[in-house]
Every structure is written in C-alpha cells, then in structure tokens.
C-alpha cells in the first residue's frame, strides 16, 4: 500500500458541541460543531507523546470538502458522508437532528469519512484535504479560490448525456445498473430492518409487564410467592435487555447506510464517463460533418441535403473566391478538431483506466466491509440469543419452584 496519510497521522473526531450563531441571512441558528484531532504517528513509536492538534468544523464544511473532492477527482469513488437527516427511523429513535444519539452516530460517521479519505492512495495527497484537518481559519476561502465550482458539470448536461450517448463502455453501463440495484436493495433492507426492530422492541417490552403483575400476585400467594417474585425480576431483566441489543444494531445499520450512499458515488463516476463519452461522440460527429462540407465545396457535388445547398441553388452559387475562403476556414477548423478529438480520446482512455482501477479497489473494499458487517450482525444475533437463553433458564427455574 502506498504511503497514505492515515499511516502518518492519527485522526479522530472526538467531540460534538452545540453552538449558536448567525447564518448568511443574519438569522440565529443552532448547529453542532465537531472537534477534529490529529496527532503524528511516528513520534509515538519513540515513546514520546506527540502533541495533539485540534480544530472545530461543522457538517456544512464537511459537505464543502466532499463537493470539492467530487469535482477535482471525478474518476474516484469518493467516500460518502453520514446522512444529513435521520432516515429509516423506528419509533424509539428520534428523527431530530439535535438528538444526542443521532449526533453521536454522526460523529462516528464523520470520523469514518475522514479515515476513508486519509487511507485513499489518491485523495489523501490533496492539499485542501490536509488543510481541512490542520488549518482552522481561512480554509473556506482557500477552497473557493480553487474555483472548483466552475469546473463542476451541470446536472442538466449530465442528464442529457445519459440519454443521448451512443457507445458508452459496457463495463460502466453494467456498473450503473449494479449501483441502482445496490441502492434499491439496501434501502429496502434498511426499511424492513427498522420495522423488525420496532416489533422486536414491542415483544421484549411487553414482557416487562409480567414483572409488575407477578410481584403483585406473589403478595397474595404463600407457596407460589417466591417463585413468582423472582420470575418477575427476570422478566424485567429480559425487557430491559432489548435497549442495548438494538443500540448495537444501529451501528450495523449505519455500516449498510454507508454503502447505500457509496452507490450514489459510483453512479457519479459512471455519469462522468457518460459525459466524457458523449462529448467525444459530439466532437467526432462535428469533425465528420465539417470534413463532408469541405469535400462538397471542393468537388462541387452536393451529397447530402442541406439548407445551405438549397439557398445557394435559389439565390445563385458563390463565386470561386468565396468558396476558396470557406474551404480554408473549414480546413483550419478540421485540423483543430482532429487535435481536439485526439486529446479527448486520450483523456477518455485515461479516465476509463484510472476510474476502473479505483472501482476495482472499491469493489474489494466493499466486499471486505460488507462481509465483516454481516458477520458482526450474526455475532450480535447469537449474543442476543445467548442472553435470551440465560434469562429464560433463570425464569424456568423460578417457575418450577412455584
């Protein structure tokens, strides 16, 4: 692995703080600021405690950073940010952005984002990224000065290209289908998981009602009293256990969400390819038509129907000097066009090559991460069942003593 930033410095998003300030329209707003801490790794090996640098950033600055990366590295699958608003909530979770649990999960997501960028062989070398981590003041201005917003492709242009491109690379078409499928299946999965979690919560919590009734009932019983009372206690334990179980599951959901958003990043790369390919095709088409025009003027034959041809027939032909001048202009344009086409072709081939390299890297990362996530989910389920076995073994003992 190349020398990634992640090997040289340790990055953490360690805290979150509520702030109030004034926004662009001079209205008061509340937002959360996150503390980014960085520390050089090398000096730690020498047994010295290296100093920690830190600065505060808010979510919108992370967004700005990511947009910059998207435009500057269109051939890279750029890691996604954690969700802007709480989605896929089930009844116990709050949809409020200020909710402490949501803020905590977002903090983890932002840290994850920075680590992903820092361990990417290409992205980690970017200066703007480095300054994001180290330079508190003036960073926004620095980013805007790069003028990256101007380089951004318009959505309309991209959409147009998607519909009209004739010969995109088959691999990218397949990749686009894959990312659509991935997005649809993961969001379906997350939605159902949220409903399952809701129901599971219900089952566990209702058992808690046993605790109170058993306790009250045990008061009037002589022989059954002890058994009932202690069984009730176990029912309370059972009901309470679901909170921790579901909290852990939220982390699993967040891991899946990351790949839900990664699907969008994949699609962005495909769109860029389509755009470049479309540009290329348009340029080639333009060149061909100019060459044809040139030929027609030179030989005097009109092979294709054109408005110009018709008007010249109606209003008389041009004289030889005019024709010569036109041909010269066209020949210049053709030469320019051919050079442009060559460089566009080169660009296109480079893009495909480097994009595909990153896509392969991404695929490996995705397979590894998802497999691990599935395994950890299975481990969670096993642990939940083990807890269940313990509680019900205890309850069974109490019941048999009734």
């Amino acid at each position, binding site marked *: 692995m190349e020398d990634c930033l992640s090997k040289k410095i340790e990055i953490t998003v360690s805290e979150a703080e509520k702030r109030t300030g004034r926004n662009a329209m001079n209205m008061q707003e509340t937002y959360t600021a996150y503390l980014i801490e960085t520390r050089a790794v090398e000096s730690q090996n020498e047994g010295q405690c290296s100093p920690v640098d830190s600065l505060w950033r808010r979510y919108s600055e992370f967004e700005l950073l990511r947009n910059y990366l998207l435009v500057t590295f269109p051939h890279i699958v750029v890691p996604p940010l954690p969700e802007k608003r709480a989605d896929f909530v089930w009844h116990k979770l709050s949809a409020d952005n200020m909710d402490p649990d949501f803020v905590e999960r977002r903090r983890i997501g932002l840290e994850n984002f920075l680590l992903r960028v820092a361990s990417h062989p290409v992205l980690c070398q970017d200066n703007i990224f480095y300054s994001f981590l180290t330079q508190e003041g003036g960073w926004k201005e620095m980013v805007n000065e790069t003028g990256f917003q101007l380089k951004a492709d318009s959505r309309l242009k991209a959409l147009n290209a998607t519909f009209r491109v004739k010969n995109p690379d088959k691999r990218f078409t397949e990749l686009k289908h894959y990312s659509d499928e991935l997005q649809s*299946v993961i969001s379906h*999965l997350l939605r159902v998981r949220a409903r399952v979690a809701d129901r599971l919560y219900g089952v566990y919590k*209702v058992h808690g009602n046993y605790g109170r*009734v058993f306790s*009250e009932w045990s008061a009037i019983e002589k022989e059954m009293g002890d058994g009932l009372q202690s069984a009730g206690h176990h029912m309370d334990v059972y009901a309470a256990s679901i909170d921790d179980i579901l909290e852990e599951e939220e982390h699993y959901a967040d891991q899946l969400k990351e790949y839900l958003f990664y699907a969008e990043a994949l699609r962005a790369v495909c769109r860029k390819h389509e755009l470049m390919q479309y540009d290329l095709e348009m340029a080639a088409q333009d060149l061909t038509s100019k060459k044809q025009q040139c030929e027609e003027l030179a030989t005097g034959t009109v092979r294709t129907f054109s408005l110009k041809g018709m008007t010249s027939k109606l209003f008389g032909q041009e004289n030889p000097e005019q024709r010569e001048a036109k041909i010269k202009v066209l020949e210049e344009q053709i030469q320019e066009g051919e050079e442009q086409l060559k460089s566009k072709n080169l660009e296109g081939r480079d893009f495909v090559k480097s994009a595909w390299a990153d896509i392969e890297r991404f695929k490996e990362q995705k397979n590894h991460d998802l497999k691990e996530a599935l*395994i950890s989910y*299975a481990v969670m389920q096993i642990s939940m069942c083990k807890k269940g076995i313990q509680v019900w*073994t205890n309850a069974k003992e109490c019941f048999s003593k*009734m």
Partner: protein
Amino acid sequence: DASLAEANSFSPSMPTSPSSMINQYKFEEEPELRDLFITVDDPESHITAIETFITYRVVTKTSRSEFDSSEYEVRRRYQDFLWLKSKLEEAHPTLIIPPLPEKFIMKGMVERFNDEFIETRRKALHKFLNRIADHPTLTFNEDFKIFLTAQAWELSSHKKQGPGLLSRMGQTVRAVASSVRGGVKNRPEMFTEMNDYMETFSQKINVLDKIAHRIYKEEREYFNEMKEYGPIHTLWSASEEDIADSLKGVASCIDKCCKATEKRMAGLSENLLPIIHEYVLYSEILMGVLKRRDLIQGELDSKVDALASKRAEKDAITEEIGKLEDKVECANNALKADWERWKQNMQYDMRSAFTNVAENNLHYYEE
C-alpha cells in the same frame, strides 16, 4: 336431602388434614388408578329449519360397577353441557365446578362456527368433563352419569324434570342480593380471606390475560415483518458475486428464525393462553361459589334471628336451625376442601404453563 348426602361424602368426620388431601390429589393424577376415561371429539354440524348447531361425540370408558356398560358413545351439544353445569351447581353450591368455554367469541365474529373456534371449544369441553371426572365428589354425581350415558331422547326427557332454569337463576340472584345487603355478619374469617384473595387474584389473572394476548400479538407482528426480511437478502445476493454466499446464508438463517418464532407463538396459543383464560373463568366461578356459601349461611343467620323473636315456635325453629347448622358446616367444609384442591391444581397448572413458556423460549433461542 340428596345434596347433603353427597356433600357428606366429604363429611366433617373424615380427617381433612393437608397430607390426606395430597394423597387424594395424587390418587386422582395416577392414570392406572383412574376408572373413568372421557374424550370429546368429532364435531359435526346439524342443520334444521330453525337453527344450525354443532354436536360433539362424547366417548366414555369405565370399569365402575355403577355403570351398566364399560363403554358409551353419545352426541352432545353445547346446551347439554350448560345444563350439566347448572345441575352440578345446584347440587353442590359450594363446590368449585370447572368452567365451560364461553357461549360466543367477543370480537371478530365473522362466522359463528369457524374451525378454530370449534376446535378451541372442543378442547375446553374435553377438559371440562375430565375435571369433573377427576373431582372426588362430582365424579359420582347422578346427572353427570346420565350426561355420559343417556341417548338423546333419554336426556331430553330427564332434563324436563327438576327445577326449571328460572329457579336456578333465582338462587344466584338471591345470592347476589344478599351480598349486596352488606355481606354476611358471621362470615368465618377463613372465607373473608378467601374472598379477599379471590378479588385480588381475579384482578391479577385478568391483567395476565391481557398481557399474554398482547405478547402473542406482538410476536405475530414481529413474525410478519421477519417474513419479508429474509427474502431481501436473497434478492441482494443476485447482484453480488463475492458476498453472494454470505448473503444467502443470512437469508436462510432469518428464515429459520421465522420458523422458530412460529413455534414459539404456537406454544403460547396452545398452552399458556387457554390456561390463563380458564383461570379467568375460574375466578368468576369462585366468586359465585363464595356468594352461594354466604347465601346458605345467610339462611342460617336469618333463622337464628327469627328464633330470638319467636319463642313460641322455638322447637320447630331450633330443629330447622340444627339442620341449617349442619348444612352450613357441610357447605363450609366442602368449600374448604375443594378450595385446597383448587389451589393445588391452580399452582400446578400455572407452574407447568409458565415453565412450558420458558422452555419454548429456550428452544426458540437455541434454534
């Protein structure tokens, strides 16, 4: 006085120590020593011009000498069971007669006789007859014998004898009225304790009934969502290569969890729910029994009062009082004994029902 004679089978002269009770209880439990076996099955629908109803087949096998034959097969409808229950209540006002399943189901009644309803009722009727057979006193009741053995026409002619429905209703109405009149003055403390116990027990068992039903409902909703959860993973595996197997693995595990949940739900609906429901009905029955005991005592008390004011008829009244005192004593003892028996049974039933639930949950998590 037939009712007294039968109550005397558990007469006060017999030692009623707890240990002898337990022996009695064990005796009933051992199947080899049972001499009366009853099954209720084969529901059949009958359609007449006036009504549609269901009959159940009641098969009895016995080695008792009082029975002319060793095997009987008859058909009975729900009405017949109701008749038997009220005859038993009449004959043994302070014994705890087992509950019958309810007449109608409260909610969601689309068809009066859907299969699930009929099966639940059949099981409950089967339990009803067997509990009577196991009861040391009720098992020898004459009406019970007729119920098990008589052909349809014999039963209907027998039913027409004896006090009508109205007089029986009157008895219960009087019982309620007398308790409304501010309770019984000389109620022995034991029965006041019973009353207090039953009030609390009744409350708690009703709450338990609601909780158990709620748990069943939540488990069912959970099951419904889980059914959708597994297939999504299979769908996903179709788009993947490397992780396809892992995804398919997760899908099959989730499906297994689904099946385990189904088993767990079945355990609840077959075991815990019916038993709790039975005891909800029992608590109503017991309140009725206690009221009837109070009524009997009330009769005694009013005669005692009458004695105080009517010295002339002293002897006659004294004799009546003597009889009533016996009656009260028998009623009290019958109830006492039956109460102990009921509590033992209840304890046993609750213990096994909840232990069963715990075991089911264990199996569920193990799977």
